[in-house]
Every structure is written in structure tokens, then in C-alpha cells.
């Protein structure tokens, strides 16, 4: 009994103690695309050179997640686009002008900065050669060339404020319009198969392939001015932060943003280096960016990953075994528990993470970022099922005669559990822990989606900038960790499971 209590205490302490973390004053977030990450790096570097320490939660989600994090005060700022605020965050509210948007955000304690200087909206693009040949500069000019072949993305064709609006406003005569994927449209444009495609106005490819954007001379496309959304309370507490926001106002043109995006996506420089270069050239702020080596990065993410696994798996073992015991002892209530735990595991992992975000935030825990409670709770939920089920199965499989013998010998329930039942079920329980552990290492890569760090981070970034080396930097250590964990548990099993419970020996009849 004492031994069991000791194991429980050790597991809980080892599982619940948070890793030491640097004290951070400011937190900036970014959405999961290159431009957002670069802009947040700019703000981070600019703020830090004036004093306060800043953490950047990179690429931890889409609009909803990042905006909610800002509203909940989990981050202090992130870059957003006016069109997204009006059309997505406040969709259906019928806000149209900047002032009503400002007032609406004010209610949440969120401020909006001046435009950073560029409008990242939809645009029509041609190769420079073709544009010069035809002599087109504006969308209106297209009316003179009905023979032009268009390749447009499906989203562009479908959105009411894009193609349908263009057709109407400019009365475009082109008949040859096909719907394709962006990558294919781009390749067809370069090879000369098509003449016009749609792009985002700050796409890296514009600069990369020397494309020309046609001016939206009738202003049909919605405005997507880049702005900072920031917490007003933080801005008044840290003047350096407010000044940094103000200094970036109007600082970046569309062409400059294209160039910055291109630097990162062509893998010429990291987001931090790119941001530093911009600061030096444009604002005259010179600073050193510590470039972390590849291996350092791998080690750091591996440690973060281990931390996620540790803090979810160890408590899941304690709770899982306890629930398994409960299910076996009180079968009618236990059926409900088993069903509930099973149900948890059927929730798609992405959905579970997003569903948990507000719950975790409501309880006052940090829902995003490194070591976020959301990721840990989600991993805990997934790890629970194999442990509960195997504990239950292991206990159920003990022959009735063995349990009854222990009872008639006079062992009390608690002693019987600690001394007889759990030790006999141990091989099955360990098998459950092994399953839970291996799954946990795999699932933990998803933590990166909400900025929880870990080996999912390089995978996500690798996918974004299509860099297989980065994807491998996450995938390979994750696979190795799973293997190592399995090996560790095999050794543990070999060490703690007595001979009598191992493979049946050949009996010598006497």
C-alpha cells in the first residue's frame, strides 16, 4: 500500500511540476502564414530594443484562435487586416467603416493601429512582358482585350466581392475563364498558357516572378489594410510597446512586403533575420539577431515536446488507473465512465484543441503558447482511454478464485488492490501506458497549432515555407521519441513484472 502511494505521489509530482520558464512581459502572436510571422518579428525586435522582454507565439492559429487569444489577454498584439476584421471577426454585424470597427474593438479593450502602409487584398496579375506588350496598367484596360485567357482560383470565382463584382463593375468581356488551384494558375501564367491570374497583393511570387498587378481603378476589391490589433492596457503600461506600434505605421509598402515575404519563402533568410534587415534599412534600427543553429532548434523543440508529454501522460496514468479501478469495482457507473473516456478519444484532435481553448481560458489558465494548458489537457484526454481500458481489462481478467482467496485470507479491499490485483494486472496496464505514450508523442505535434511548441512547430513551419529539412527536424525526433519511450517501457516491464506473470513456463508434473 505504501509502495502504491509512493508511486502515485512520484508520478503526480513529476507530471504536474511546470518547467521553469523565463519571465515575459509582453506576448505577441502571429497567424500561420509567412507575412504574419515576419510582421510580429518586426514588432518584437522593435519593442525589445527599447527594453521590455517579448515572446512571439509564432503561427499558432487562424483568425478566430488568435483574435480570441488577444481578447482574452493571452497575447498583447498581432497583425490583422481591416477586411478580415469587418468581414470575418465581425461578420454579420454590418460594420462598414473604420470608426464603427474601432468602437466595437474598444469594448473588448483592443486598440487598432494606423495602417502599416500596405493593402493585402486580391489583385489581378500578368507577367511584366505580357503587360508591356498589351499596354495594360489597370483592370479597366482589360476591356480592350477580350481574347485574354484567365485562370482564377475557385475562392476568387466564388466570393461575391471578387469575380462577380469585377464582372459587374468593369463589364469585362473575357469568355475564357477557368477555375484552377493557385499553384497551377501561377505555373500556367509563367509558361504563357494563360494571361491573367488572381493573387494576393503582397504574395512573394509577385516579386519572384516579376509580375505586374493591375490597378483596381474602380476600387471594387475590399480593403485589407494591415494594422496592429493590441491590448490598450498593455500599450499604456509599456510606452516602448506603444512607440514600436506607432513607428511601424505607414512604414511598409506593398512592394516592400512582397520582398520581405520572398526573402523568407525563397529561404534566403529566417523571419527574424528578414525583420531585422527591414528595421535596419527602413527605420535605421540596427540590432543583432541571434540565429539559432539547426541542431539547437531541434533540441529546444524536443525538450518542449518532452515537457508536453510528461505533463499530460504522467497525470493520465494516475487518473487512468484510478478510473480503471473504479470501472471494475462499480460496473454500472463504470460503463458510463468507459463510454465517456471512449467518446473523448473519438473527438478529432484539432476540434478538441479548439473546443478546449475557451474552457481552459475560462478557468483562468493559459490556453495558448508554450506549455499551454489546452495542449496538455487535450493530450491528457487522449492518453486516458488506453490506460483506463487496460486497467479495467487487466483487473477483469484476474480469475475469480484468486480474488476470493485473497478476500477469505482476510486482506482488506485497499490491501487486496495494492498487493494482489494491481500487480497481477500490471503487464496489461503497462501495455496501456505504452499505447498512451506512443500516441501522446504523436499527438503532441499538434500542439504547435495553438503555439504550444514542441516538434510540431518545425513541421508546421516546414510546410508553410515548403522546406523538407524543417519538416524532418520535427518528424524524425518525434518518431525517435516514440521509439525511445517504447523501449523505456519495455525495459521497465522487464524490470518490474515478476517471472510468474511472464510467458507461461513449461510445467514439470511431479
Amino acid at each position, binding site marked *: 500500500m505504501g509502495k502504491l502511494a509512493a508511486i502515485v505521489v512520484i508520478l503526480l509530482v513529476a507530471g504536474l511540476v511546470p518547467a521553469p520558464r523565463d519571465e515575459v512581459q509582453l506576448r505577441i502572436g502571429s497567424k500561420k502564414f509567412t507575412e504574419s510571422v515576419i510582421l510580429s518579428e518586426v514588432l518584437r525586435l522593435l519593442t525589445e530594443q527599447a527594453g521590455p522582454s517579448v515572446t512571439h507565439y509564432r503561427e499558432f492559429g487562424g483568425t478566430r484562435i488568435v483574435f480570441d487569444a488577444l481578447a482574452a489577454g493571452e497575447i498583447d498584439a498581432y497583425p490583422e487586416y481591416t477586411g478580415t476584421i469587418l468581414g470575418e471577426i465581425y461578420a454579420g454585424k454590418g460594420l462598414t467603416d473604420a470608426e464603427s470597427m474601432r468602437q466595437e474593438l474598444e469594448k473588448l479593450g483592443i486598440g487598432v493601429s494606423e495602417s502599416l502602409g500596405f493593402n493585402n487584398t486580391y489583385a489581378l496579375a500578368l507577367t511584366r512582358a505580357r503587360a508591356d506588350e498589351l499596354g495594360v496598367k489597370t483592370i479597366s484596360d482589360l476591356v480592350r482585350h477580350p481574347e485574354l485567357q484567365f485562370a482564377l482560383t475557385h475562392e476568387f470565382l466564388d466570393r461575391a466581392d471578387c469575380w462577380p463584382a469585377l464582372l459587374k463593375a468593369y463589364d469585362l468581356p473575357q469568355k475564357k475563364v477557368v477555375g484552377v488551384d493557385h499553384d497551377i494558375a501561377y505555373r500556367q501564367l509563367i509558361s504563357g498558357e494563360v494571361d491573367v491570374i488572381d493573387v494576393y497583393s503582397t504574395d512573394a511570387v509577385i516579386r519572384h516572378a516579376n509580375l505586374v498587378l493591375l490597378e483596381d481603378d474602380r476600387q471594387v476589391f475590399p480593403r485589407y489594410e494591415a494594422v496592429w490589433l493590441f491590448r490598450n492596457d498593455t500599450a499604456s503600461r509599456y510606452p516602448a510597446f506603444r512607440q514600436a506600434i506607432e513607428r511601424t505605421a505607414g512604414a511598409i509598402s506593398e512592394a516592400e512586403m512582397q520582398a520581405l515575404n520572398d526573402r523568407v519563402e525563397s529561404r534566403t533568410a529566417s523571419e527574424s533575420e528578414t525583420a531585422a534587415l527591414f528595421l535596419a534599412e527602413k527605420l535605421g534600427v540596427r540590432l543583432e539577431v541571434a540565429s539559432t543553429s539547426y541542431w539547437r532548434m531541434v533540441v529546444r523543440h524536443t525538450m518542449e515536446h518532452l515537457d508536453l508529454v510528461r505533463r499530460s501522460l504522467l497525470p493520465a496514468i494516475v487518473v487512468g488507473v484510478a478510473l480503471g479501478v473504479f470501472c471494475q469495482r462499480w460496473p454500472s457507473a463504470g460503463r458510463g465512465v468507459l463510454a465517456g473516456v471512449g467518446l473523448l478519444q473519438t473527438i478529432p484532435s484539432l476540434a478538441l484543441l479548439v473546443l478546449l481553448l475557451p474552457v481552459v481560458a475560462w478557468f483562468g489558465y493559459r490556453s495558448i503558447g508554450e506549455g499551454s494548458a489546452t495542449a496538455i489537457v487535450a493530450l491528457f484526454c487522449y492518453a486516458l482511454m488506453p490506460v483506463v481500458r487496460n486497467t479495467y481489462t487487466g483487473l477483469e481478467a484476474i480469475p475469480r478464485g484468486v480474488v476470493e482467496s485473497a478476500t477469505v*485470507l482476510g486482506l482488506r479491499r485497499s490491501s487486496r488492490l495494492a498487493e494482489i490485483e494491481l500487480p497481477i494486472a500490471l503487464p496489461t496496464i503497462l501495455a496501456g501506458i505504452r499505447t498512451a505514450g506512443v500516441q501522446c508523442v504523436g499527438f503532441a505535434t499538434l500542439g504547435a497549432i495553438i503555439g504550444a511548441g514542441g516538434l510540431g512547430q518545425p513541421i508546421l513551419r516546414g510546410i508553410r515555407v515548403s522546406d523538407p529539412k524543417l519538416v524532418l527536424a520535427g518528424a524524425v525526433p518525434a518518431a525517435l521519441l516514440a521509439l525511445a519511450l517504447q523501449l523505456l517501457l519495455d525495459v521497465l516491464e522487464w524490470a518490474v513484472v515478476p517471472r510468474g506473470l511472464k510467458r507461461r513456463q513449461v510445467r514439470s508434473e511431479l
Partner: protein
Amino acid sequence: MLELREVTKSYAGATVVAPLTLHVPAGEVLVLLGPSGCGKTTILRMIAGLVTPTSGEIAVDGLPLSNATIGQVRHKLGYVIQEGGLFPHLTARANIVLMARYAGWSRERMERRLVELVEMTEFPPDALDRYPTELSGGQRQRVSLMRALFLEPSLLLLDEPLGALDPLIRAGLQRDLKTVFTRSGATVVLVTHDLVEASWFADRVCVLEAGRVVQEGPFAEIVERPASQFVREFVNSQVVAS
């Protein structure tokens, strides 16, 4: 020593044990004999406190069996079942001394008692550190017996203790069991369907049919003067078979 007064057991309205009154004096070996399903095992399990009687009273050494007294009563009991019920994760030795450890016995005292029992049950001492899976069926039953006897119980309950054994081993253990019964001086209630075992062990036999005692007395009387058609057929079927 053991008293059962008007004890009954029924499951969902079906009677498994009809009102049963039994008095077993100290030192007697009582055999509950009958075909499977006659209720003999249920009676034993009620005495062990594993099954609660539907009505009636059971007393061991004058102590009436109840939730409050069950712990005390179990100190007086030894219990051996067909497959031994040994703890597979413990060695034979650890199985045997488990309860003495809880009772706070000293190492020397445990060792003395172990030597005594090993000798009494004719168990090979070098097999004490083996796990149950590494023992033969007969050895496992001897370990189970030692475990049951270790704290010197006054009442020994055995449920088909020879049931799962090969004939040769069975004969050997049957012989040794009798010695153990005599030497331990415990009161014994043994459940079996086997006439030979009943004749070998019993001071007194209770023949059961469908939860009811149909004949009670010394073994010879059962064979020579069966009280009913059922008892006659039950006896004859085994005599003819052997």
C-alpha cells in the same frame, strides 16, 4: 464449532439452498457430497463470507457471521479451492507467508512455521521460490493448503481440492491431506462430488440434492442404506463407473 441455522440462499427467486441446519463439532471432517449444481459450493461460500445468505444464521466458534464480524471470522478460516487460487505474481513462499506478514510475524517465526508445513504437506522445499506457473498441479494445491493453514485456522474449508489433478497425483495428495487434517486438528468442511474422497476423508457425510440435504450420516450408512432413489443412483453411478 460451526453452526448453520435455517440458512437459505436464492437467486432471483430460484432456491439454491433450502433451509439448512447443520452443527459441526470441533475436529470433525464433514463432507458435503452431491452432483454439480446441488448447492454444496454455495454453502461453503456462505461460510467463507463470499456469499450472503438470503436468510438464516451462520456462526463460527460462537461468533455469528455478519459484516461487522467478517474480518474476525476470517482469521479462523482457511480456504482452498479447486485451482488453488494462488497469486501468480508471488512465489510459493510469498503466497504462503502473505498474511503472516500482515500479522507482523517475525522472520524466524515465519521460517519455523514454514518448515513445519513443508514437512507436513510433503512439499519439496527447493520449490518454495518458484512461481505458481512453475509448479505442478499437485504442488500448487500443497502451496494453497500451506497458505490456508499458515495462521493455524480452526476451520478449514476445501472446495473440490483434488478436482483438477491427474489420478496419480490425486492419490498422493489425498493421502497427505488426511495426515494434514489429523495433525492440524482443524475442523474441516470439504466439498466434493467424488464418493472415494468422501469415503476417505469423512467422519460424516451430507448428501445434497437440489439445495436440500437428503441424507446425513457416516459414509458406510450412505452406501449401505441409501435414503432415497436419488442417493442410490448417485452412489451406484460412481460404483459402476469405477
